[in-house]
């Protein structure tokens, strides 16, 4: 039961959390679900998000409609530091084919989230009398087949397209209206497809709706459709309106061959349901863009047109630390999309946060106008009567060919002391600790003036470059030290073993020394040395102390430890011992000759014993 409750709680939380995450949304609607082939359809796409700017919707390529942008309207609301933006995009759709037509799903993507509208279906019907009068693009369909004959008889073209700007010279940002007219004197199988021109050094804004009517040119009566576009030059110099295309289905007048494999297609074309596709294009139209005159005011930011400015705050009273929405609205004619925010004067009494803008564009009487509102978030630093001074805005008026400077009225705020620890409002999540620094971009760090590597990488390079064999040296030293330590310990643990091994060498050295003493005439010292040496030798070999050694004990020990020692060797030991003892304790008997003989006898005995002891 408890598990089920937990699951239900988790599901409830998940359901609650889901809409909170989906900050970006998009919706689309048409003003009607049925439209005549000669009529227009308004498609309204609304994109909403929780940031200052939301992405533009992406319309799929629609072959079944001609699409014209009819403006956009943006609204921003800031409540408790949260920004909500809603932008409405309006499009005019002109159907090209009869029947049920689809407006595919429209997507918006802000880099993190994606929102999609459902598909919309619209039924396109044949035009009635009323629709035909309103949209003469359908007129050719109703026109009699006599018209082509008449046009041909007059020598004029049956169908043509013409592009004409209202001026050939303008300032950057000044509106140029381009009129594109499609004339036909023959009935068409369907509404033609319009491929708009591209531009050089110009930006465009559609001016719907499509105008249509009838006119007579050179004695030929034509039905025409007119599309108007507003153009704004970007920079002084040359600009171009590049060729546009109109693709129309023209009924075929050729006789139908019953044996032609395309017999049924040709028959359909004859009947007007289907025709030959033909493309009509215009030439390149060059324009001259004049530079703005010198003497621009310091506040001039490139705005061209005719504007008025107002400033307002969302309230007249506030507390320190609380956010106040301060808005500057620019109304007028011109390319409002390109107008940048006016620079605020220094506001020592306020912290100023991000600027957001909203835009409402109108296209009445083919003039781009509207309202652009810049909203600043001001947070009063101190209490008292605080004034936001007049904000200046400069623009170039192309009608008067002069710069103009306008300004707002100062806005006064009464600021009271905020509560202790009042919650501050921050709009830049990247720097919540808040200072006055707001990162506006990012880039790589500058090149370094440092030369060469630091000592440690250089040292590391040298150490790692050492040959492999060099590292065997410390290992060898360690091994040697280890071996020496072991040897010393073994030596300390087995002293008799080492005395046994050293005995012969030590005795030989003593004999040499004794002979030297004999030569020097110091016989007594030589005998003493030989005696002590012999005792030490036997002691080392028998493994007992000299003081504990008697002739009998030495004999027994030798026999016991070295059973291979022969009787002759034992006899020799006893004889040498006796002789040395005699001379050692009777120094007067130690003549030079006798001492030397003793030394030789001792040497011979050593050789014999070394052999016998190994048996």
């Amino acid at each position, binding site marked *: 039961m408890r598990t089920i409750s937990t699951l239900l709680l988790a599901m409830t939380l998940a359901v609650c959390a889901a809409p909170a995450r989906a900050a970006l949304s998009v919706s689309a609607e048409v003003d009607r679900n049925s439209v005549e082939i000669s009529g227009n359809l308004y498609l309204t796409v609304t994109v909403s998000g929780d940031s200052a700017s939301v992405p533009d919707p992406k319309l799929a390529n629609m072959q079944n409609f001609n699409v014209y942008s009819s403006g956009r309207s943006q609204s921003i609301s800031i409540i408790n530091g949260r920004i909500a933006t809603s932008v409405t995009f309006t499009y005019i759709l002109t159907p090209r084919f009869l029947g049920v037509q689809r407006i595919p799903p429209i997507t918006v993507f802000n880099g993190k989230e994606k929102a999609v509208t459902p598909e919309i279906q619209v039924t396109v019907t044949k035009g009635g009398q009323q629709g035909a009068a309103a949209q003469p693009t359908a007129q050719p369909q109703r026109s009699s087949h006599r018209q082509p004959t008449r046009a041909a008889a007059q020598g004029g073209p049956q169908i043509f397209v013409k592009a004409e700007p209202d001026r050939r010279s303008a300032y950057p940002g000044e509106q140029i209206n381009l009129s594109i007219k499609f004339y036909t004197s023959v009935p068409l199988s369907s509404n033609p497809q319009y491929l708009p021109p591209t531009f050089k050094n110009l930006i465009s804004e559609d001016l719907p709706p499509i105008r249509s009517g009838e006119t007579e040119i050179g004695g030929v009566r034509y039905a025409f459709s007119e599309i108007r576009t507003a153009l704004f030059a970007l920079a002084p110099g040359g600009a171009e309106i590049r060729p546009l295309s109109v693709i129309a289905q023209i009924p075929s007048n050729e006789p139908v061959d019953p044996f032609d494999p395309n017999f049924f297609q040709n028959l359909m074309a004859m009947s007007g349901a289907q025709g030959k596709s033909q493309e009509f294009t215009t030439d390149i139209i060059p324009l001259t863009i004049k530079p703005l005159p010198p003497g621009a005011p310091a506040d001039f930011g490139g705005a061209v047109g005719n504007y008025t400015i107002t400033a307002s705050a969302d309230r007249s009273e506030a507390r320190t630390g609380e956010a106040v929405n301060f808005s500057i609205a620019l109304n007028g004619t011109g390319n409002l999309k390109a107008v940048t925010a006016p620079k605020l004067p220094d506001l020592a009494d306020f912290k100023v946060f991000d600027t957001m803008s909203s835009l409402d564009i109108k296209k009445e009487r083919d003039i781009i106008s509207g309202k652009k509102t810049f909203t600043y978030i001001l947070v009063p630093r101190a209490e008292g009567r605080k004034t936001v001074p007049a904000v200046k805005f400069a623009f170039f008026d192309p009608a008067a060919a002069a710069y103009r400077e306008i300004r707002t009225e100062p806005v006064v705020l009464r600021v009271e002391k905020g509560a202790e620890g009042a919650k501050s409002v921050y709009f830049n999540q990247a720097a919540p600790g808040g200072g006055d620094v707001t990162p506006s971009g*990012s*880039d*790589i*760090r*500058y*090149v*370094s*003036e*440092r*030369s*060469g*590597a*630091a*000592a*440690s*990488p*250089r*040292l*590391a*390079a*040298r*150490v*790692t470059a*050492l040959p492999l064999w060099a*590292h065997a040296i*410390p*290992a060898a*030293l*360690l091994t*040697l*030290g*280890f071996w*020496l*330590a072991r040897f*010393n*310990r073994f030596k300390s643990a087995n002293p008799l073993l080492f005395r046994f091994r050293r005995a012969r060498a030590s005795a030989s050295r003593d004999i040499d020394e004794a002979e030297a003493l004999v030569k020097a005439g110091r016989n007594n010292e030589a005998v003493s040395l030989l005696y002590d040496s012999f005792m030490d030798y036997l002691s080392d070999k028998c493994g007992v102390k000299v003081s504990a050694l008697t002739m009998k004990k030495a004999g027994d020990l030798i026999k016991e430890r070295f059973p291979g020692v022969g009787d002759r060797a034992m006899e020799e030991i006893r004889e040498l011992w006796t002789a040395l003892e005699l001379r050692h304790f009777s120094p007067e008997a130690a003549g030079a000759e006798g001492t030397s003989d003793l030394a030789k006898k001792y040497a011979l005995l050593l050789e014999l014993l070394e052999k016998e002891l190994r048996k």
Partner: protein
Amino acid sequence: MIPAKKVLFLLLAAAALPAAAYDRSELAEFNDLYKTGRYEEALEGYRNIIAAEPANPWAYYNAGNALFRLNRMGPAVLNYSRAFMLDPRSADIRANLDYALRQTGQTLAPDNVPKALHYIYYLLAEREIKAAAILLFWLACLAGAASFLFDGGGAGRAAGSVSLTAAGLLVLALAWLGARQTSPFTAAGVAVKPDGARMLSGPGGNFKTYASAPEGRLVRILDAADDNYYEIGLPREGIKGWALKTDIERL
């Protein structure tokens, strides 16, 4: 009697002397070229410095900056990565490498790894860790030999302690070095061609192309035995394949 500290200082200074293998005024000249937007010429200069001093991280860093300005993101990532491998403690090098990686859809530090841990992981360059391991090995061996020679004495015990400490640190250094083998900058290469690197299912043009590594992508080089192709892996995607050696520059 010269104090030991002075001797050490002189040794380090001697080690650093070859740092001035080129004229400092040349560097200032190349930086001026960079400053005035003549990135190609600045890059040529930085390449000369790299040729003279292959262990100079700042030459790679500056070359990376010039390449970044020229919008050659793959070679920029390559040069920043080389600078990072030589001096991973530099904040400038880290910042620019991270920035360039982000331009190519990668990050220097994975999002799920604490920054401090990542900094410690790359505190020393791989070569520095190897050098530290070698020095610790020498110290452990020599102090060990001394402890054996002075067996039983106070000096022997002190030498033994030093030897054991050095051996412990050596084990840590080796473990660190082992952990660094999983770093994306170890046994790695960078796709340097503007079109990226085509990944084939075998080392030859007759094999099928089934993926491509975009420009600037760090790849792991699994095998370099073939004359013309590297066997490369993309750990994040879990795929591997063969790419032309001309498309991948080894770090």
